């Protein structure tokens, strides 16, 4: 078992988990009933999927600086994603969009 083999299989497993979360995020976006619940799916599942993909790529990266850059990109996506999510939820709430509840339907 060389490092290449371990990194290859490990990153493949991480890619599978990441792809699963991307898939779950898209399914949530399609299936969930209203804007707020869809925002949940979008921010959580997709940021996590990107995190797994980035970790998998980091295992294969050729230098440390690339690893740090990959995680910097992930950090930027997390921060901008959470901020954009708050902005959309805030605007939706401010315009009087009521959340979907189980009792109403």
């Amino acid at each position, binding site marked *: 078992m060389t490092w290449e083999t371990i990194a290859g299989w490990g990153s493949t497993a991480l890619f599978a988990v990441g792809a699963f979360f991307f898939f779950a995020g*898209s399914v949530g976006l399609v299936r969930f009933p209203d804007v707020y619940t869809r925002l949940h799916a979008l921010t959580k599942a997709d940021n996590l999927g990107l995190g797994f993909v980035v970790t998998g790529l980091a295992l294969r990266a050729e230098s440390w600086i690339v690893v740090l850059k990959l995680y910097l990109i992930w950090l930027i*996506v997390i921060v901008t994603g959470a901020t954009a999510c708050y902005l959309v939820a805030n605007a939706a709430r401010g315009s009087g969009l009521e959340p979907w509840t189980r009792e109403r339907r």
Partner: protein
Amino acid sequence: MTLALEVLAVVIMATVSLGIYRIERGPTGTDRMLSAMLFGTSGVALTLVLAEITGIGALRDMALVFALLGALTSVSFVKRAWGAEDR
């Protein structure tokens, strides 16, 4: 081991195409905007994966551009176009 990367690229592409359904359906403009946000995150992942497959390091800079653009589009949607989605 590039096969894993290629399969990952195909899967992300397929999930992104799934999200287009949400633009077709709506019902509000906000829902449509959400799928644009989804493509921001998936676009970053896709670009990073393609950077690894092709070995072009400059594509990682493009992933940064994608990350920042997602924020730009959502902010301009919320600040400038809110309530205009029925047009």
